[in-house]
């Protein structure tokens, strides 16, 4: 990989990040709102209490002054304090990142693995019953809204069969600590992870299927067969590795979404992650929290996009010379 290609990609990412840091600040201030009045409606605050809260939130300064403060703070990796909890935004985000990474990470990997396998099966046995049923299933799950699927799974497995809890990440009355919590948390993550896995699965299947079908028309596969290789080996050694290229890109981009979580699914299963935190912060509006969350989401998108770019360049030499 050339240094020039690398430098260009990294510089592009940094420029995007800088733009987002600035854009972030103004985005949440387009709407004319007063967080103090809204958060404390009906609370009978005195004038001085209001003034104090306004000052504490940094809202007593002009927009320009607030922007300068924001840039300074962000440069020092200080994302401010949440209006609602009065705790540093960074620590709030840190606490909630774990559950989201676990949930969306597991689902992303599982859906990619099973999606690819199904895609291979469908493409290899194209125009058979396997192909039709896999494609049909994938189209169906791809088009299902994840919140709807979540509700259905919740109704069947949690309410109807009573196999899994209805929400949360752990049993509140459990006193287990450390690794002993794992079985309890595994039971809680099962339904949301299943929902997301099924919801993401179809995309991988369809991409893998069409990519493999395209590869199967290549001359080198005819050659491989002509050499006398068995069908399974032709598929596994020659066709699949070449067809995986678009899936790698898709996976990298989807991993960028991992932190942004799945707002709807986290809300349905009361999963205490970043998606839910975003939803709550919008209700406030908790401006520092929203700014912090969007910054982190953008950062993860940029980083994974960069990784996808670099990986693509590495896997496919045509990209980096283009």
């Amino acid at each position, binding site marked *: 990989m050339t240094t020039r290609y690398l430098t260009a990609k990294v510089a592009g990412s940094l420029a995007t990040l800088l733009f987002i840091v600035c854009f972030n600040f103004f985005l949440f201030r387009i709407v004319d709102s007063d967080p103090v009045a809204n958060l404390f409606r009906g609370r009978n605050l*005195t004038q001085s209490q209001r003034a104090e809260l306004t000052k504490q939130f940094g809202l007593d300064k002009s927009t320009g002054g607030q922007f300068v403060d924001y840039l300074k703070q962000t440069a020092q990796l200080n994302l401010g304090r949440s209006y609602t*909890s009065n705790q540093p935004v960074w620590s709030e985000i840190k606490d909630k990142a774990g559950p989201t990474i676990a949930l969306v990470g597991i689902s992303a990997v*599982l859906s990619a693995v099973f999606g690819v396998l199904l895609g291979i099966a469908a493409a290899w046995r194209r125009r058979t019953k396997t192909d039709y049923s896999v494609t049909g299933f994938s189209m169906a799950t791809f088009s299902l809204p994840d919140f709807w699927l979540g509700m259905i799974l919740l109704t069947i497995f949690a309410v109807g069969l009573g196999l899994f809890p209805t929400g949360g990440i752990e049993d509140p009355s459990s006193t287990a600590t450390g690794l002993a919590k794992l079985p309890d948390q*595994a*039971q809680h993550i099962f339904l949301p992870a299943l929902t997301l896995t099924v919801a993401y699965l179809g995309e991988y299947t369809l991409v893998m299927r069409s990519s493999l079908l395209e590869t199967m028309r290549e001359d080198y596969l005819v050659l491989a067969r002509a050499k006398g290789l068995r069908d399974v080996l032709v598929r596994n050694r020659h066709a699949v590795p070449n067809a995986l290229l678009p899936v790698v890109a898709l996976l990298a981009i989807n991993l960028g979404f991992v932190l942004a979580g799945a707002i709807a699914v986290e809300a349905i299963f009361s999963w205490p992650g970043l998606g839910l*935190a975003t939803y709550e912060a919008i209700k406030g509006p908790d401006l520092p929290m929203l700014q912090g969350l969007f910054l982190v989401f953008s950062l993860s998108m940029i980083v994974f996009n960069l990784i996808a770019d670099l990986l693509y360049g590495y896997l496919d030499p045509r990209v980096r010379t283009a």
Partner: protein
Amino acid sequence: MMRKVLAPAVLLLVLVGGLAAVAAQGQDDGRTSVFDVGDPQGIDSMSPLIGVTVAAYEAWNIQYATLTDKAAKDYSTIPGLAESWKGSEDQRTWTYKLRPGLKWSDGKPLTSEDVAWTVNTARKEEWINHSSVVQNLTAEAPDPRTVVIRSSVPDPKLPTMDAYILPKHIWGKMSADERGNYDALDGVGSGPFVLEKFEKGQFARFRANPHYWRGRPAVDEVVLRKFNNPDAMIAAIKTGELDAAFDVSGSGFKQLQQDPDIATIEGYQGSMTEIAINGGDGLKKPHPALLDPKVREAIGHAIDRETLVKRVLDGFGQPLDTLSVSPSPKWTPDVPSEEAFDFDLAEARQILEDAGYKDTDGDGIREMPGGGQPLNFKYMVRSDSVEAQPIAEFFTGWLREIGIATTRKVADDSQLTTIVGKGDYDMFSWGWTPFVDPDPMLSYFTCDQVASDPDDPTNYYNDANYCDPQYDKLYQQQKVELDDQRRVELAHEMLLRHANWGVYHTLYVEPDLQAYRKDRFTGFVRQPAKTGPVIYAQTSPSYARLKPVTATAGGDDGGGSGGIIAAVVVAVVLLGAGAFVVMRRRTAYERE
């Protein structure tokens, strides 16, 4: 390649299934009685200096006792940490005697020092949840069991002292700034239960306080759990995962009413909804027609409260003719029938006709007297409320029938607060939930709460934007009236005046819909009696009185599902293992 991927995937699946099963088996390990409550809102902070949500109040009610308590029956003031009290001649100085041998949950003595420190520090630092009680008070502690509290003004709320008393040996060690940012997870309190574990956005677990002044509660633990999905909360109480639920949806409530093991409660605490008209005394005038009392009167006759309760609230509510200023019904006056705005579209039309508002151009909409500007009002619809949209549908429909058009605009709460402050609207619908003492709600409609500073329009409460000097006079009188009966009369007079302005049409009071499992706990108390809620009440008296229903033999409700899970998991493990073995073989064959 494919095999290499498939093998770990199958293993992972087996692992997840296995863990789930272990967890299911590991549950229900015979833990002592835990009262599990679901609520859709959640505790925002355990610190009474920071939190604002209803769930946070519930947590403090559980953890912190107050000097005087409120009777479950009617909110009357009863002994709390103080067993008795005596007022001075002018009723501005009150001397409280604490119960003997009071202790914090950590075993340290609870003395008058803690009370005096809380009152004085809360006043100086203006703690948001203490201010309304302590802003004019100073406290002294002449001896460990005596607290003397002086008010700088006549205060009809005294001797009620319903501010949470905090442990000085914890909170007193910090600077004011540190206190303001303290997360309050110390779990030291004087209430029936104290915090054991808090996972923000998920749950708070409390354990019984052995030093609680009424004695250790019969229940071992209380859990307040946040549910982001209201349907999941209904499901959880049905399956027994929860013992009680707060803020249940109307449709969920109807489902739960069918379950013989579940008690459903419509708990009234005075939460009300109104349609407010811009009274014109704020920063911007409304449509000129709305400044005419006749037009406002006609609008009052175009609101069918019965229908709104039936259709918008699913029948869970009661029509309301005046402002609801307290959860206690004694503060609500009976409106004489000649003063009430009853639903009568013909009368509404007649009033408009007589006042000269006629439809001169035949488009179905009336114009100002003498023609000209049509009666088309700007109606703000709250996007943050599920009720606002259907209310808007009904109300604007009725207005249309009397020849008034509306232009609807949607705003979220934050935007609407600003719009109301700036007076940039004709009408909107919103609501209030009052405190027990009516003073705060009454104060919101005084003249100095009408927005007057264009640079800071949201710094005011009067969202009627209407100023009535006579109302202000009565407000000042009730504020210092120490005779309770007389104060009630003054409040009634104020509320009837307020209703007569015609700028604030109250629609209904709505209950908190709650449910609890009768087969798990007994001892629930409604506050106030008969009409109030059993949990999330003003002082939440139920928790200290709950008793677990004696468990019947084999009452392990997880057992059945545990068996099913075990079967499912055995099947998954066998399938997984089989697939794994087959794959290993085939891979070996391929390595020819």
